[in-house]
Every structure is written in structure tokens, then in C-alpha cells.
């Protein structure tokens, strides 16, 4: 069986830094924080919630440019998804003809459907005990696969549709499953990624599980602090990251510019605990990934960690990274990008993959914001605390989610000469 090489021909992003991939690049390259105190809106909504900080998108999405008949079925999560996908598709130069052919599909996901819409739906039903004020599009805003379904309708896409909604691993899995669909020749290309909207109830979930930061409510730019000894939990953000993946053959045939390559993907279950991923599970996943991809760990220049800033998750992940590479005499650079924009949950892997591509393009690695003193409990890794000039060809990208859902991607700089 002929296996296709899978390349990236388009990216799109909306993040707490703003709309478009350029604003995402700019925010990270200026090492800014997008975390703010959410003020009275959150205080009034849930007075006993400790965490008061978040990473919201503060600019107008101008969603009215989406035709009303499509927009009515979109909550904020899907609007973010569609707008980021639009940017990626434009960059890739895909046409209506591609989407109608059945050869191009979508793999897109989020933790849940639109949280604002879920909240409103439940509130109206409970308050009014009537269907009279529920609009027809409400269900399509709150259904779990809302992002993939809305992207498909927006582009009249007739190919494969997948929506692996797996919380913080959502977009990692979406990219991975899209990669597999192309690698095995089932599709020529896929729009893939993930989205998440920020709502007080999302942060409340982390707060309840004692996984949300609350000691920095008055100094929001100092949290989250992945791998730092003074970290106290994660901070939820919102956004959407979209990529267009294609077989190398299709991309070259279309004359599309290639921005990088997906070289490997593994997804595996922890199967023991809802919130804890153990170091040995991550190690097993990494071993499987490198074996299946036929890549030597020595080739890894940089590890883009999941690193959310929680007390336990950071320890398990960092120890797994240390052990995996140390036993081979290696210590690649490691950073997490969540110190800048918080944890954008379903969008996080996709946004971080987009930044990894940028790092490869620039040959500059981005440090973990707010990491000042690496925690001794975290593995002895080569943590980036400053920007680092580094020729970067191969990156490992981790994503771990509640429910014991894990995914790891391998990304490589595309070399036109080796095609």
C-alpha cells in the first residue's frame, strides 16, 4: 500500500491575541500575556469561584459577514472555527470544486458545543418551561460536533467529516485523524483543528477540580506558569486554530505552497483515571510514536509541551519527557505556550502547531512565559526561559486531556529538495 506524505498548505487562527495568524505570531514574538481579570461578570455569575482570570478574545469577530442562514446555527465556538478555517482555506487556495469533489474533508472539534448557547438553552427551558423562545438553530450551536458540521456547511464540503471532541486533546486528535485519512489515501486533503469559547462555566469546571489558577487574580499576566515552582493551576482561554492538510502529491499538483509536514501521530488512552495521566502512559505513547514513525528521537530539536500550569499534570509530563530523552543521552529544548494565552482547550493543540510551524520558519524557539524557576519536581529538562535561536527541523507536540485522552504529533520542516 502506498502511503502519502502529508503536508500543511494553510493555517488560520483566532486567539486571545486577536484575529488572524499574524496577530498570533505577533503576540508570541513580543512575549505578551493575553490573560486578564474577568471582573464583575464572573464574580456575579459564580461568587464562590476562586479563579477570576481568563484569556478572552477582546476584539469584535464581525461575524455578521457570515450569511444569516449559516450563522443562525453557529454559537461562538463554531463562529471561531469557521472564521479560522476560512483563513486557512484561503491561504491554501482550495476552491469550491475541491470541496464538492468528495476528496476533501473536515476533522474539527471542541470540548463541547457552544457553552454560552448551552447555558442559555438550559436557562430558558428551566425558567420558562416552554419551547416558545427556543430558536431552531440552538441545537446546532450546542451539539458536540457543531464545529465540524458548521465548517462542512460553510464550504459545501462533501468529503469525510470527523469530530473527535476530546477536551484538551480535541485538535491534536483532529489533526492526527486528518493526517491518517490522507496518509492512507482516503482523502486528498482535510481542514482540521479545534475551537473553544471562554465561558465562566468552563473555568468553573477547572476551579471545582482545583486545577485553576487563583493566586494571581490581581496580577493576571503572571499566570499560568507552566513548570514553574510558583504555578497554581491553569487559566482558560478561547480561540480556534485551523490547518489545511493535503497529500504532498495533491499540494504539488495544485501548485500550493507547503509550510510543513506532519510526520507522525499517536493517540492513546490512559484508561485509569479521569484527570491524571501518568508518566509511564506518556512514555509508552512516545515510544510507540517514534517506532511507528520510524524516526530517531535524536532528530527532535524541540518539544512543544502540553504544559498547562497545573500542579500534577506538569510534573507527570515533564518527567516523561526527561526520561524518554535522557535514557538516549538527549535533552531537547522544551517549552509550553500556555503562559501567554492560557489553555485554549479544544483549540490549544492547533494553535500551538501553528506556532511550531512559525518557529521552524524563523529558526527561533519561543520560551514558556512566566517560567522563572523550574520546579524541582518537574523533570530536569532543557526549559526555554528566553527566546533561543535554533535551527529547528523536527518538533514533538504533546496534548493530554481529561478523560485520559492523549495525542502526540510529530512536525517536520518541509524540504522541497527531498520530495
Amino acid at each position: 500500500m502506498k502511503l502519502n506524505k502529508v503536508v500543511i498548505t494553510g493555517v488560520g487562527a483566532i486567539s486571545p491575541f486577536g484575529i488572524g495568524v499574524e496577530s498570533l505570531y505577533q503576540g508570541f514574538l513580543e512575549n505578551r500575556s493575553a490573560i486578564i481579570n474577568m471582573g464583575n461578570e464572573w464574580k456575579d455569575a459564580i461568587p464562590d469561584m476562586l479563579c477570576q482570570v481568563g484569556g478572552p478574545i477582546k476584539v469584535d469577530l464581525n461575524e455578521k459577514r457570515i450569511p444569516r442562514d449559516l450563522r443562525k446555527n453557529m454559537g461562538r465556538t463554531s463562529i471561531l472555527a469557521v472564521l479560522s478555517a476560512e483563513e486557512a482555506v484561503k491561504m491554501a487556495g482550495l476552491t469550491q470544486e475541491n470541496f464538492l469533489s468528495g476528496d476533501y474533508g473536515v476533522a474539527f472539534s471542541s470540548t463541547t458545543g457552544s457553552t454560552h448557547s448551552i447555558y442559555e438553552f438550559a436557562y430558558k427551558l428551566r425558567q420558562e418551561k416552554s419551547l416558545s423562545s427556543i430558536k431552531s438553530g440552538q441545537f446546532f450551536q450546542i451539539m458536540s460536533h457543531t464545529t465540524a458540521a458548521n465548517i462542512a456547511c460553510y464550504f459545501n464540503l462533501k468529503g469525510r467529516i470527523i469530530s473527535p471532541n476530546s477536551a484538551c486533546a480535541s485538535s491534536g486528535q483532529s489533526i492526527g485523524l486528518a493526517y491518517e485519512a490522507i496518509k492512507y489515501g482516503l482523502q486528498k486533503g482535510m481542514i482540521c483543528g479545534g475551537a473553544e469559547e471562554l465561558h465562566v462555566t468552563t473555568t468553573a469546571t477547572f476551579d471545582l477540580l482545583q486545577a485553576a489558577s487563583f493566586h494571581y487574580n490581581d496580577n493576571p499576566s503572571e499566570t499560568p506558569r507552566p513548570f514553574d515552582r510558583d504555578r497554581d493551576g491553569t487559566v482558560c482561554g478561547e480561540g480556534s486554530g485551523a490547518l489545511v492538510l493535503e497529500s504532498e502529491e495533491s499540494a504539488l499538483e495544485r501548485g500550493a505552497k507547503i509550510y510543513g509536514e506532519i510526520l507522525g501521530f499517536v493517540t492513546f488512552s490512559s484508561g485509569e483515571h479521569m484527570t491524571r495521566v501518568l508518566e509511564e502512559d506518556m512514555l509508552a505513547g512516545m515510544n510507540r510514536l517514534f517506532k511507528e514513525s520510524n524516526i530517531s528521537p535524536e532528530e527532535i530539536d524541540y518539544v512543544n509541551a502540553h504544559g498547562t500550569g497545573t500542579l500534577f499534570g506538569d510534573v507527570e509530563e515533564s518527567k516523561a519527557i526527561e526520561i524518554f530523552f535522557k535514557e538516549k543521552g538527549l535533552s531537547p529544548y522544551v517549552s509550553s505556550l500556555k503562559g501567554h494565552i492560557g489553555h485554549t482547550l479544544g483549540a490549544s493543540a492547533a494553535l500551538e502547531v501553528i506556532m511550531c510551524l512559525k518557529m521552524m520558519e524563523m529558526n527561533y524557539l519561543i520560551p514558556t512565559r512566566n517560567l522563572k524557576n523550574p520546579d524541582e519536581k518537574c523533570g530536569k529538562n532543557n526549559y526555554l526561559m528566553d527566546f533561543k535561536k535554533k535551527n529547528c527541523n523536527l518538533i514533538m507536540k504533546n496534548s493530554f486531556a481529561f478523560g485520559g485522552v492523549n495525542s502526540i504529533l510529530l512536525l517536520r520542516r518541509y524540504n522541497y529538495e527531498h520530495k
Partner: protein
Amino acid sequence: MNTNEIFEKVKKVFVEEFEIPESEITKESKIFEELGLDSLDSVDLIVALEKEFNFKIDRAKDGPIITQIRTVQDILNYIESKKNSI
């Protein structure tokens, strides 16, 4: 409320709920083919009409009548028939 007043209110529903320019709405307008509504929009149309005219639609009884609505005039006729409850 006379027919013209009802028409003005119906137009308001189409403008506000479905973002249709007022100039495109006539009594003869076909709501699906010309004004671009789809079958799901008719659910929202009913909700909006209930609110605008302050009446309650009996979903079981009125359902078959509502599904026959094709033009703005059909809506006006339906609302006229509900006048007693308005």
C-alpha cells in the same frame, strides 16, 4: 389592527429576525423561494410572530395550517384568522 398595520408588523419581523431588507418584502413575496427562508426558519418565524402579536400558537392545532404558509399574504391571512386572540 387593520391589514396594513399587520403587514407593517410582519415586515418588522422579517427585517429583525431574518435580516431581510424591508424593500424586498411585499405581500406577494414567497417566503422560501424569494426571501430565502428555510424549513428551520419557519420555526423561528412562528416564535417571532407570537412575540410580535402577543398570541400563543397551539402547536398541535395550528401546525398543519402553518406548514401550508408559502407567501407573506398567507401569514397575513393566518394572523387575521387569529385576530380574536390578539
